[in-house]
């Protein structure tokens, strides 16, 4: 390995941040659904996969890239809504395990359909802008990576705006804090659940499309993305957006540094080791408070 200069480190870090921002998008999708419905959606990664696949397909139909992007995101949002109506809504009062298994069923079905529709051959999506990579202080960073960062940041800002400054967003947050109270205020948990799924699907789809030009798109890319999304969501305690963002970026950077400096087979392991460290760090915060009669919200 050549001598390391700042540029090298910077490059790894920047690459890590851009990958990390994808994890953040997926993780926020997990967090959104969890806080509003109380279920961990094990099919989250599939939204990313569908987004990427549909973008590839639309682009293949001669749509301009931007249009393909938007159309794909919209399509996945609609699919997300459909999934919520068909599989989550009817099982509203089921136990957490049942709901988790339903998301597993959805994940298997979606992957099967993807396999049927697109086969096992990986696809690729061209970068959003063509052109030489940029040089920053000795680091080389491709334009697509910058797009990743920019898009993720834009979506996050949009999300923030939606949640903080619109009535609908506040309704979602109310539901996330306490479903019972929210429903007493006239907020329909069913509608909020639908909205949460649409939001998550959108987040996932954007993440998948934006990273598509950097990796290969295939029917099973959702699995590992989803798993890493969960890890990051757990870092955020499954409820905190800022911590999720921090966690996702950290994970991306850690993976990038480990792959670049030590060994690339370590990359996937990092995520799960990080998961365990975080979980057990939280467990050390002391015995849980068991409040009798607490509503599951």
């Amino acid at each position, binding site marked *: 390995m050549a001598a390391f200069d700042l540029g090298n480190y910077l490059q790894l870090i920047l690459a890590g941040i851009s990958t990390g921002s994808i994890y953040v998008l997926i993780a926020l999708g997990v967090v959104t659904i969890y806080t509003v419905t109380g279920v961990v959606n094990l099919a989250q990664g599939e939204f990313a996969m569908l987004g990427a696949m549909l973008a590839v397909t639309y682009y293949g139909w001669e749509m301009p890239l931007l249009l393909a992007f938007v159309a794909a995101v919209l399509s996945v949002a609609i699919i997300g809504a459909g999934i919520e109506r068909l599989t989550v809504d009817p099982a509203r009062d089921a136990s957490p395990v049942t709901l988790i298994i339903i998301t597993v069923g959805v994940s298997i079905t979606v992957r099967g359909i993807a396999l049927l529709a697109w086969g096992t051959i990986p696809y690729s999506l061209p970068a959003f802008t063509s052109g030489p990579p940029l040089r920053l202080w000795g680091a080389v960073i491709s334009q697509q990576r910058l797009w990743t960062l920019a898009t993720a940041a834009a979506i996050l800002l949009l999300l923030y705006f939606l949640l903080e400054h619109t009535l609908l967003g506040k309704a979602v947050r109310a539901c996330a804090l306490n479903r019972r109270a929210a429903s007493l205020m006239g907020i329909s948990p069913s509608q909020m659940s639908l909205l949460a799924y649409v939001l998550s699907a959108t987040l996932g789809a954007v993440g998948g499309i934006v990273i598509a030009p950097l990796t290969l798109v295939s029917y099973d890319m959702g699995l590992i993305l989803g798993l890493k999304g969960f890890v990051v969501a757990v870092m955020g305690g499954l409820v905190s957006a800022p911590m999720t963002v921090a966690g996702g970026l950290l994970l991306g950077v850690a993976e990038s540094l480990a792959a670049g400096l030590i060994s690339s087979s370590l990359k996937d392991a990092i995520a799960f080791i990080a998961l365990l460290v975080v979980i057990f760090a939280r467990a050390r915060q002391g*015995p849980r*408070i*068991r*409040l*009798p*009669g607490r509503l599951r919200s």
Partner: protein
Amino acid sequence: MLAVEGVTKAFEGVLALDEVSLEVAAHSITALVGPNGAGKTTLFNIVAGSYPPTRGTVRLEGRVLDGVPAHERVRLGIGRTFQNALLFDHMTVLENVMVGRHVHGRAGMVAAALRLPRMRAEEERLYLDGMKYLNLVGLGQRAQTLAGSLPFGQQRLVAIARALATEPRLLLMDEPAAGLNALEKLDLADLIRRIQEMGITVLLIEHDVPLVMRLAELIIVLDHGRKLAEGTPEQVRQDRKVLAAYLGEGAA
């Protein structure tokens, strides 16, 4: 029997209890009253060990309870019932009470798996004990019913039987009369007196004023996390601060 000394409890900025001190005499029936949000259930949770106080100590018969986890306090003699019975819905009524006998049994997983004779003998005993406590609250004939299918008032009784099965020395009852009709309340009052006759000290949270006035020997009034007043029913009834808290400033 029970001494609460300077207990304070803060929850992320909300001061649920503020330097509350009180004493419950052995073999007595004491009532903890106060408007909603006064901190009564919080105090129960601290005494029972669900969470520690931010400051202050709790003593049971002189022994400091700091750091003793909730399930161990049961062995020391503290039993409790909850506002919402918290029965084990999918188990039968008898099984619910039998679990109450848990600390009085010893068979572990291996003995259970192999059905050792010692374990089977113990099971018999637990069964009989369970029926005994169930009959004490008058629900013997409902033994095999699923706990979740009972009407509310009966669920309460099962919860009481379950708590009694632990053979507590101090029984904390959280709003046992809530949601009961007049007849059921009379029966409940009877039951509480019988519990006292069994030698158990009773500390109860209640909103039903007539019931409390009839039953309790000592009444402690909490409001906004502080002890407002303390005394016999007569004394408390006439206390200005209490009247002000319940009925508003003008009535005092």
